[in-house]
């Protein structure tokens, strides 16, 4: 049992935060490995090979993002970034560097645990799911049939345009990961993002929400992060 738990590497220089986070994660059945700076994080990462990394950005020796990009050059282990900065451009930069999600400090325990669960579950599923022949993607009562390029909601087909389907399919392949506007635009339109195509994406997204019958405050499949991007979520 003990060896079967998910391993989480938590990198944070504040001792108080390390203390409560390791207590919280241990209490919820995760094995926690702690690191207080970048070089320690690197050492711990390569000796323990964690399933998930929770990374604080302001580290004493180096900026946390350098650790993220170093790991990303070889591994796809999910990263959740803790950031005290509420600046959207910073969030976008980190997501584009390969972070799966971010949590802004200060955060509640429930919020953090939900992100951890989402990250771990989706990473394990997406490594074998995805584009195999006959592959289907299920999210609550929504099913995507990749071969037929069709989407069903409670068994009924939702008529989407090509572009709308491409957006949803892209989000589903990265389910649980916050996708920035620019990442979606590059993948769907193969264009460099500017104000014009961000608007195009926003309008397409609005149509998708309408077709899925989603109302503000009740977007149960698609989470929007203002000024950053979208994420398909599997837990509300």
């Amino acid at each position, binding site marked *: 049992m003990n060896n079967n738990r998910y391993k989480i590497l938590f990198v944070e220089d504040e001792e108080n935060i390390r203390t409560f986070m390791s207590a919280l994660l241990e209490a919820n059945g995760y094995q926690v490995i702690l690191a207080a700076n970048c070089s320690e994080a690197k050492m711990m990462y390569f000796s323990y090979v964690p399933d998930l990394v929770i990374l604080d950005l302001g580290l004493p020796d180096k900026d946390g993002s350098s650790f993220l990009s170093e790991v990303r050059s070889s591994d796809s282990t999910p990263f959740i970034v803790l950031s005290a900065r*509420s600046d*959207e451009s910073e969030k976008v930069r980190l997501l584009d560097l390969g972070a799966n999600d971010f949590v802004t400090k*200060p955060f509640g325990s429930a919020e953090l645990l939900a992100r951890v669960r989402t990250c771990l579950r989706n990473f394990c599923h997406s490594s074998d799911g995805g584009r195999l022949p006959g592959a289907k993607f299920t999210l609550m009562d929504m099913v995507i049939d990749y071969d037929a390029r069709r989407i069903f909601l409670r068994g009924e087909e939702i008529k989407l345009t090509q572009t709308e389907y491409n957006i949803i399919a892209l989000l589903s392949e990265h389910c649980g990961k916050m996708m920035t506007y620019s990442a979606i635009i590059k993948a769907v339109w193969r264009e460099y993002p500017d*104000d014009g195509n*961000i*608007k195009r994406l*926003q*309008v397409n*997204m*609005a*149509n998708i*929400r309408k077709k899925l019958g989603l109302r*503000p*405050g009740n*977007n149960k499949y698609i989470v*929007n*992060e*203002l*000024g950053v991007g979208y994420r398909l979520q599997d837990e509300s």
Partner: protein
Amino acid sequence: MGEKTLKHIKNALVMLLILGVTFFISLVLQDVLTMQEHITTVFVFAVFLVSLITDGYLYGILTAFLGVIAVNFAFTFPYFAFNFTIPENFFSALIMIVISLMTSALTTKLKKWQELKAEGEHEKMRANLLRAVSHDLRTPLTTIYGSSSAIIDNYDSLSDESKRKMILGIKDDSQWLIGMVENLLSITRIDSGNVKLIKSPTVLEELVDSVILKFKKRYPDVKLSIDIPDEVVIIPMDPILIEQVIINILENAVHHALGMTKISFTVKLNDGSARFEISDDGCGIEKERLDRIFTGYYDITEQSTDAKRRNAGIGLSVCATIIKAHGGSITAANSSSGGAIFSFTLDASEPNEEEI
């Protein structure tokens, strides 16, 4: 750089206009009224005017020189020819230059003084804000520090129930602190130097969605009804700041509208502007508070020891600052049925002209 050139062009135009008018008046004085002895006085007046209106010393002195040349050339014997041997010319040139220097020095001083005064007001507002905030921070910090040290010092003697209560108090008051910090961050986001607000096209529906999620997380039991246009509306704004405005107004209703049973939030479009309206069916706002509701926090005369009440103050002051920075307007009123209505407007016209 462009602004500087523009200023120079403006100053030069003012100078040329005044000189032209002076020249014309002098011509009239000389040829029609034959009172050329007053021409120098008219030019002295022109020098004074130019020094007063333009920025710096350059244009005043330039006018003095041009004035001397004009008087010498056109209005003293020999007419329409230069003659620098007449001593009166040197005398009037000297007077004009001295007047120009003195006037320019005076106006420059005056402008500097005005700037200093504005800066002083700003400083005063900042100092007031700082004082009020630090005062308000003490109440929640007292709870947090007091409760946590009570728990740690009496861990075994306290009942589980009272420990639970104290921890809940810590949680509540930290949440209050988070709200306060968010508001302060919003102010610095606008106030930090000369950084202009960065507006990005924002889908109204996504903004409202984000607001509802945040609000529901904190106040799951408050009834909130939403009415926004069906079509896709894209409004240029700083979405994080506008989200803060709406949340502050909603929170204000939760904490201060006594007897409130539901809040309604509507957005209407007309004539390229979006009108956001948040109304409740609570007790409304007292008349005396109504005119200063958006500025009260900066006002040191408002002394209240109730921190919860003061935080509402900073929340609404922040709303006003944010909406002002967006070029919109914000109002508070009481509805005929008794509750309070807060509303603000934002420019929702397509930003095609400025962006392409």
